[in-house]
């Protein structure tokens, strides 16, 4: 009997299912997403996949060895503001932590317009109103010493009054609880006595990190999305079990792996943004197959452009996340985003007479003018169709007619205003968008101390392959890979299928050099034991368990921390010099040579253990043979396309992406069309199909 790996991803419109059999054969299915009760869409997608491999749903479930699922229940609760009514218990005197928001508007790194124009900005709506926050007497100091014991009477009164106010979930965060969690634990116990079944989340469990604002935000958000996520996952888990699925259902998480339903229920915050992260996971796997260690993954859709970075076969992570201006602590694969997409609006700054693209977007509705859904403002997609990058008569596999004339008319108005030709303007729009995206690619790498020139760029999303050849070239990247086959369109589900089980456990304990080896080893040992227990619970055999150890360190008196990886979980006295050397190396890699201060005292801040289990990986089949000969009929015709490099229209060959063969190489300019995208190859660039049927563009950079 066949055995499958299965990945499931719920998108805004479709729920994707990917099955991978033991030979690496992919089977894809899609079903409409079913908001309100997403489990319906999930089961339907599974059912359709089963039909394709000739198995009824119960038989299919019986032959799936691992089912990884990305859920958006939490994200939706936040977007629609339909989360639970949460009560917060915190240290007396510190009720306002999440209202003060560290005296900021939570906009750093966000839209610069809101930063410079204060009257347009505001703080986000509070997740928990002040009247649902209770301070209780207790206190721990910076050494982790209890200086005020927990006042349990106050705790009981607080919980009761929150219940009276209708609280549906409880968040608990005390100052310094990551050093001394007993008080938070006790509150949880009391809550369990007083209100059995109440959803309770404590900061020392969810985010034992240094900084009460980001920790409180984490518990507040977690409690906010908790009940809904638990409801959804429990329901889906039960229905799958009823249908005969045996192994534990795994949920994809934002740190780039999967966790059990139980862990996802305790920490639903881990599931936020797991969709884009699965895309990075999928790229990581494809990168291994292609032997690419450094990858910039990009996803350009209608409204946004996402960038993730894989360096040395590891996804680049961040330890602070941001959702709706709320900052919180959780380890997460870093996916940076900006509002440039196919829907970015083109406009003229009237006062200065300059051409601008975005950041406002026409979104999916009304969308670009050429979609004929009521859009009246020209967008980058309209420029693409005017330039000829997109075929108005054969868009999305011929399923949609584009209104080129409408797009051209609207852009012509702008062109006249600026005294340019229509094509100059349209190609300017494309360039401005491409250069803006190149900036984000630069930022995502350079700010991590990485050089974009050392990377290949993966282009996903409907609009990505249209523009990435130029974006990559501008960022100094030599090669662009447009993943092909069906994997490209169901990328996140593919990523979910290839994800490993992963538990990231962290503990903050601030210690200054000279370090005590014994203390470090104790901390790492405890974290490893925690991870081991979690993996055991997931049913992972000891032989498959992997442990990675790291410490976040900094110069004493400074803020910036860098993550220093260790070889193992037990240090010897003689390793300490090496630890300092590793810190200096990593610090200078990030911040520049000579940036570190020799002889300065160092501090260890966060200790971290990543406990993981490698899951069985899909095997992607390579073509047995390659050929340089381009099949007759692969070229479907020519189209007049405007090329900025030549500043003129030129008849350009158009290819059918499905008829090209591995080994085929084409000179730019040309366009390769598939049902989901157009791959635009500029003059001076070449494109070829590799043995995995991916398209690989050489961007024309030599050095």
């Amino acid at each position, binding site marked *: 009997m066949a055995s499958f790996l299965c990945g499931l991803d719920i998108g805004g419109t479709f729920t994707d299912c990917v099955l991978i059999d033991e030979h690496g054969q992919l089977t894809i299915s899609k079903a409409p997403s079913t908001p309100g009760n997403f489990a319906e869409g999930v089961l339907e997608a599974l059912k359709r996949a089963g039909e394709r491999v000739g198995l009824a749903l119960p038989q299919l479930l019986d032959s799936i060895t691992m089912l990884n699922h990305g859920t958006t229940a939490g994200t939706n609760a936040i977007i629609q503001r339909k989360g639970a009514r949460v009560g917060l218990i915190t240290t007396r005197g510190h009720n306002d932590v999440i209202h*003060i928001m*560290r005296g*900021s508007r939570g906009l750093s790194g966000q839209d610069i317009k809101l*930063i410079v124009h204060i009257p347009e900005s505001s703080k986000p709506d509070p997740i928990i109103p002040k009247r649902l926050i209770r*301070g209780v007497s207790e206190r721990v100091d910076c050494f982790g010493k209890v200086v*005020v014991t927990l006042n349990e009477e106050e705790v009981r009164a607080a919980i009761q009054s929150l219940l009276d106010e209708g609280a549906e979930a409880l968040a608990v965060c005390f100052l310094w609880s990551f050093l001394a969690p007993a008080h938070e634990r006790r509150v949880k116990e009391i809550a369990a006595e007083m209100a059995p079944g109440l959803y309770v989340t404590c900061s020392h469990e969810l985010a034992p990190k240094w900084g009460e604002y980001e920790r409180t935000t984490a518990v507040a958000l977690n409690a906010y999305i908790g009940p809904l996520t638990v409801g959804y996952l429990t329901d889906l888990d039960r229905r799958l079990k009823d249908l005969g699925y045996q192994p534990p259902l795994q949920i994809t998480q934002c740190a780039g792996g999967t966790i059990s339903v139980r862990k996802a229920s305790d920490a639903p915050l881990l599931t936020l943004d797991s969709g884009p992260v699965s895309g990075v996971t999928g790229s990581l796997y494809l990168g291994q197959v292609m032997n690419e260690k450094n990858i910039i993954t990009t996803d350009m859709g209608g409204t946004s452009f996402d960038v993730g970075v894989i360096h040395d076969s590891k996804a680049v992570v961040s330890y602070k996340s941001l959702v709706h201006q709320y900052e919180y602590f959780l380890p997460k694969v870093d996916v940076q985003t900006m509002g440039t997409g196919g829907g970015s609006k083109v406009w003229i700054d009237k006062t200065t007479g300059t051409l601008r693209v975005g950041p406002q977007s026409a979104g999916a509705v009304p969308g670009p003018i050429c979609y004929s859904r009521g859009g009246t403002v020209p967008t980058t997609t309209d420029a693409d169709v005017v330039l000829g990058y997109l075929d108005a008569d054969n868009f999305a596999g011929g399923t949609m007619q584009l209104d080129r004339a409408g797009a051209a008319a609207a852009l012509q108005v702008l062109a006249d205003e600026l005294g340019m030709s229509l094509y100059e303007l349209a190609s300017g729009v494309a360039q401005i968008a491409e250069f803006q995206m190149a900036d984000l690619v630069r930022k995502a790498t350079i700010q991590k101390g990485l050089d974009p020139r050392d990377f290949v760029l993966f282009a996903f999303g409907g609009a990505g392959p249209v523009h990435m050849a130029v974006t990559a070239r501008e960022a100094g990247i030599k090669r662009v890979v447009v993943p092909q086959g069906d994997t490209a369109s169901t990328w996140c589900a593919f990523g979910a299928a290839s994800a490993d089980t992963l538990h990231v456990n962290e503990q903050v304990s601030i210690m200054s050099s000279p370090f005590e080896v014994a203390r470090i080893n104790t901390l790492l040992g405890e974290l490893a034991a925690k991870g081991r227990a979690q993996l055991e619970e997931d049913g992972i055999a000891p032989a498959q368990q992997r442990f990675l150890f790291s410490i976040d360190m900094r110069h004493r008196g400074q803020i910036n921390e860098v993550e220093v990886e260790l070889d193992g979980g037990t240090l010897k006295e003689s390793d300490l010099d090496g630890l300092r050397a590793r810190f200096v190396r990593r610090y200078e890699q990030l911040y520049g040579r000579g940036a570190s201060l020799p002889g300065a005292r160092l501090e260890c801040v966060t200790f971290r253990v990543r406990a993981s289990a490698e899951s069985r990986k899909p095997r992607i089949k390579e073509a047995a043979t390659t050929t340089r000969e381009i099949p007759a009929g692969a070229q479907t015709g020519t189209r007049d396309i405007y090329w900025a490099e030549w500043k003129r229209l030129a008849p350009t060959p158009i290819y059918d992406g499905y008829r090209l063969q591995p080994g085929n190489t084409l000179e730019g300019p040309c366009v390769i069309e598939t049902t989901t995208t157009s791959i635009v190859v500029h003059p001076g660039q070449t494109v070829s199909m590799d043995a995995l049927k991916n398209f690989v563009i050489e961007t024309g950079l030599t050095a």
Partner: protein
Amino acid sequence: MPRISEITDIDFDGVNHPYVPPKELRISPKLKLHRDWETEVDPVTYEVVRHNLWQINEEHGATIQRLSGSPVAMYALDLNPSLLTEDAEFVYFGPYMQYMSGVTDTQVKWTLEFRSDNPGIQEGDMFLANDPWVGAAHQQDVMLLCPVFWEGELFCWVTNCLHQYDIGGITPGSFCPSAESVYDEGIMLPPIKIIEKGEIRRDIEAVYLRASRKPQLVALDFRAQMAGNATARDRVLELIRRYGPRTVKGVMKKIIDNSEKAYLAKMARIPDGYWQDRTYIEACRPGDRRTHRVQLQLRKEGNKLLFSNDGSAGQEGAMNATYSGWRGAIMVAVTELLCWDQYFAVGGALRHVDFDPTPGTLNCANFPASVSTAPIQSMEISLYPAYNVLSKMIYPDAEMRRDIMCIGGTSQWPATLFRGTDQWGERYGYLLIDPIGGAIGAFAHGDGINTGGQSRTPICQLPNIEHTEQSFPILFLYRKELPDSGGAGKYRGGLSAESCFIPHNTDFITQDTLSSGNATPTSPGMMGGYPSTTNAYTFLRDTDIASRMQQSRMIEDTSEVSGKPELLQLRQENFIQNPADVYAVRWTGGGGFGDPFERDPVDIERDLEDLAITPAAALSIYGAVLNADARTVDRAATAKHRAAVRAARVARHQLPAVKREGSVLYAASVALEVKRDEQGTFWACGHCSTELGAVGGNYKDACILEEHPVSASNPLIGEPSDFIDDKVVFRQFCCPGCGVQIDNEIAVAHDPVLCDIAIKA
């Protein structure tokens, strides 16, 4: 005293008097400037290069932050990177500490004038500078200027400024509240070539670090500044190689030209006029109980804006700022209110803005006045009046009205300068950063932002309590937003907060205070809005906090502990805080906009729900009658009560009130119109058309004047006589016809009624 423009016999060269750049810079012929640029850059290239230049400046700032890593750079964001043309016009200025704009171009211009001959300005050089008479805000704000050369010609400048922990002087941290002159303060360096041909001059670096109590940190910051400049310089050169020097320079010039165009378009929409504001600094040295008046005038004639400080008090003690500090403060408001849409490209506007203060005043001090406290005293107090005068200037235009911002929180900084031995056994000395949490004042279309930071640093962040407790031997009892701390108004100012702490894991802390705005509110409202709370120190000696901790009965207000209250003065030195002594510091909030009697009951109910105001203030300040639940507003009773209060004002004074119709030329403020009929142009009440005099005069003279103690304006304002000898009053100006409040002002009792808006007859 004469203004700068009226003085002809003094050389404003940055030695004994402030440096005021001449229209034509005197640059040595040894230095070749790149003066050749493309005047017609196509729109696409323009947008691409423009975006790149903005990104370069961003990356410059990010580099400094990452490399410095100091709490100053990371939380207070007390830094700013800039990109300027070869002749020191701003191309871009970062969204960090906005003060630093005004101190940047002047220092580059001075360097061009006084360093281009000897020692010369060459490729690979960088200049270190922090002389407040040349152009620094105060000595701690150290600048590093980097000329960028292309083929032997000076192409442009990249510069940055970063506040230093300690550069010497009589007080750790280098804010010196008891200094009598610069000789008591940190090291002062007129621009000095510290990097030559790409190499650090070790001898000069040693001089720079020698005066500091924290030379290692200063050295690290210096490297961060160097790397920031180098990053920006290299990227500019990359851009030049890609697009050519003529194109890149053409874009730079066009960015400035465009920002000028945008500025001119705005000026064309606003009527000419004259606006004035007045505020006060308290205590210029330990023991001082006087107020020191600060006045600002703005005159708009066509495209020109002229700022002056007539009537401001003389320089004295340790509260002063120099010319560049004052100019920098005003430029914050110009940038944020007029140039935000050009991403702070203020260069174009500056072509039409003149600064003409009077030397010898507290905000245009001559050498050798003490200026180390400038950014938290004279500059801050010079900035916020600029928000007011500019807001009133743009009010007549309905679209620009959306850019109005009332004075925000921490309009004077209540500093707690502390020092001692920390829990790690090391010496420390710094100040509590908490007041950076500030508040944003009300807008003309909505409420301000509670603890929304200081508007002059749009992206600052307050350290977590756990961060501060790790660095210093203190234990916070609470940090909380305060109900009623925001100024009342039709739109409420943002709430501010209070932090309260005790020494912990140390025997004691030695403290200094340094504050102002504790007696006189420094965040007044606008156009009828009320002031926020004042700053306040609360100090309770020998409290029962230890036994409370023992019994697990913690506090969330100082009123809960027993102890002996001690009144701290605004420059109290060397007092000891023992572990039993509870110390709380409260900072000012945001000013309100428009008459609080106009606030919608729905908003008042939300304020009560969100604990933003107290039920008592709902009635006394907003005139809202609450139902028995103290959470909802009785609409009918409120309307009746508000009308009765207004009618009573009219009845009390019985001033002549004549309705005068005519066509409305524009609204000068919320309840004040400029009208015209056949007889001429006149002021009129916006509610009832009662005439308020001819436009040549002060409309306030025709209004009902009611004078109250200043404590009537905000429930959190205390007794001014605790700190100053002057009496402080809250003056309301109301329409003699309908009793509606048109504006109010806060003044020292012996100061005359202020003429805040004037237009030519």
